[in-house]
């Protein structure tokens, strides 16, 4: 009939296999989507606080080095950029260190989960827990394709689908059935596979020792819900190097924060703004150049808002600026709290004296990170973001008032001297990072191990064939 005729109007060039990780293969059938997807390699756009440019966050804001002292993020942290770079960036980040071979390095294999369409393929081949097991370096030769088609699409119908178990499991934990999601919800849920807060649970029954990827959503998405979740299981990502507080790292809770905003409330999906329709040669298709919508207000915003592009951008900046103002003040207080807590230890404070203080610091910084880490929050949900930051300010002041009292008790009744952290370098020196060593290790990795991975992968992929489609007419 005419409907199926329409559906198959395009001439499929190749048969795309289940979990086909090579984006170029899909691109044979869907050249427009593929071409626009390739544009995520463009790094020329910068907005007030976003864009596709490489932005060294530690350099832009050296306070972060102190906030994350003792944790990988203090070594290196950039703002996310185009999906095209997902694999390249995880090679490059100092957080993955300089493994010398299988079994080496600071990070687990789980780190690959959100970086490539090779992941569903491998999970299918090996099993989920097996995928998460072992070191990051163990799977280097298996994962080479940047985020792409198989992460979001079923190959026969191109229907959106969920390729990552963590999201399905998280819905289960909340007592919700993700298979009931509407088409419009799917246009956000494919993003929620990755743009969400997560942690590695090493104590899952039956999977002890495996850093299993879990979204901490059981009690809900709100900052307090997740905090209660972590407090209940006494989880912490790391112990702060200066304050010794048991810290939580919030990682890009993009979907969670977005879902508290007015656009979500009105049924707008991630794809509406980050993947709007585009016309090219009289044909409409979904723009797969996923990027800051501010580089594309005509398609991304003006579909629904008739305001001038300039005004819309100003609306976004204004919300970001107001949020940044409060967020930076909170960071200042947090830096002070860590340093003051460090001083207390120095002066002989006991665990007992410090306990309540460290708990305040943990909760204050968790709120800060929840508001900051997804980059989009100040626009996605400005009111919730502000509420979370206010909560952080209250917790930070609780900590600092207690610290002032304890310091006085320990004989230091005056402002504690603050380190010079006016640049990333100074801050990293202050927390005692040997940056030269870290860079050297990374170089060695890139010279020795990485080329080996790429070679192996090439050979492996060369053996995967591409089936030409049989044209039926």
């Amino acid at each position, binding site marked *: 009939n005419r409907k199926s005729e329409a559906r198959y109007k395009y001439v499929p060039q190749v048969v795309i296999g289940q979990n086909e990780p090579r984006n170029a293969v899909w691109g044979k059938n869907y050249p427009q989507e593929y071409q626009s997807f390739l544009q995520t390699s463009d790094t020329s756009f910068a907005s007030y606080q976003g864009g596709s440019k490489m932005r060294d966050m530690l350099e832009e804001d050296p306070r972060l080095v102190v906030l994350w002292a003792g944790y990988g993020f203090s070594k290196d942290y950039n703002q996310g950029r185009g999906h095209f770079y997902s694999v390249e960036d995880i090679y490059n980040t100092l957080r993955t260190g300089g493994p010398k071979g299988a079994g080496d390095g600071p990070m687990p294999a789980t780190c690959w989960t959100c970086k490539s369409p090779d992941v569903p393929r491998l999970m299918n081949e090996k099993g989920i827990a097996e995928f998460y097991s072992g070191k990051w370096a163990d799977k280097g030769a298996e994962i080479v394709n940047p985020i792409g088609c198989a992460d979001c699409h079923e190959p026969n119908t191109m229907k959106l689908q969920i390729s990552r178990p963590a999201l399905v499991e998280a819905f289960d934990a909340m007592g919700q059935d993700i298979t009931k999601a509407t088409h419009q919800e799917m246009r956000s849920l494919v993003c929620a596979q990755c743009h969400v807060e997560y942690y590695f649970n090493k104590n899952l029954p039956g999977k002890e020792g495996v850093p299993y990827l879990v979204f901490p959503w059981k009690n809900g998405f709100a900052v307090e819900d997740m905090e209660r979740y972590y407090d209940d299981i006494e989880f912490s990502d790391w112990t702060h190097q200066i304050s010794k507080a048991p810290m939580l790292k919030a990682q890009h809770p993009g979907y969670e924060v977005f879902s508290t905003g007015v656009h979500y409330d009105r049924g707008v999906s991630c794809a509406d703004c980050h993947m709007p329709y585009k016309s090219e040669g009289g044909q409409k298709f979904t723009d797969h150049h996923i990027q800051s919508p501010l580089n594309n207000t005509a398609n991304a915003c003006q579909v629904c808002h*008739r305001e001038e592009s300039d005004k819309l951008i100003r609306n976004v900046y204004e919300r970001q600026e107001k949020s940044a103002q409060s967020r930076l003040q909170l960071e200042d207080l947090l830096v002070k709290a860590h340093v003051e807590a460090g001083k207390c230890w120095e002066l002989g404070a006991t665990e007992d004296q410090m306990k309540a203080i460290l708990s305040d610091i943990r909760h204050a910084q968790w709120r800060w990170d929840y508001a900051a880490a997804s980059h989009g929050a100040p626009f996605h949900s400005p009111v919730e973001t502000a509420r979370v930051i206010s909560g952080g300010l209250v917790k930070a002041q609780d900590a600092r008032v207690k610290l002032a009292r304890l310091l006085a008790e320990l004989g230091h009744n005056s402002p504690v001297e603050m380190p010079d952290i006016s640049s990333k370098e100074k801050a990293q020196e202050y927390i005692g990072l040997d940056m030269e060593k870290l860079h050297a290790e990374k170089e060695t990795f890139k010279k020795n191990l990485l080329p080996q991975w790429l070679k192996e992968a090439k050979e492996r992929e060369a053996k995967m064939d591409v089936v030409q489609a049989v044209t039926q007419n």
Partner: protein
Amino acid sequence: MSQKFSILPSKSSRWRTLSVVLIAVVLGMGLFMAKEAELVSYLSDDPQACVNCHVMTPVYNSWMHSSHREWASCNDCHVPHNNLANAYFFKAKDGLYHASVFTARAEPEVIKMREESEEVVQDNCLRCHIQQVTQVKYNGWLEMHNGNRTDRKCWSCHREVPHGRVHGNSTIRYNIAPLPTDRETNIIPTWLADEINESKVK
């Protein structure tokens, strides 16, 4: 020969006097109508141009209180926007029609758009909202538009857009609300302006 092209009957005709009178009347009426209707103001897109007729007050007022006030003026909806010539042609034609009806005091209690005008408005709704109502992408956001969109007018559902649900000439009792748009008088009463001045001098 000359008779052939003369618009007037021959000097000898008894119709001549009457025709002169009639022509004068038509011209005069035209001028009167032009002045009465403040014709020049129609060259602008200012909605106030339309309120020169009191019968337009209800629609003006309802538009003034509608979601479209900041976005769309009368002409954005009621004049074709597919090309400039058409716009002016339609405007002139429409204007003359309104003016004659108005001057003849033949306006109905409830004015209705002619079919021709409806087409124009419908096209204009689409001009602004085409993406919202046609892109399947936004079905999730705007559920209702899949079907039923092409076989009826937008305002059969969006009944308040932009003139509200109540129509008719006497729906605005005092016909005074547009007056605040006049710039003839100041928004500070004279006594207060004087008082303020006086208090400044001191």
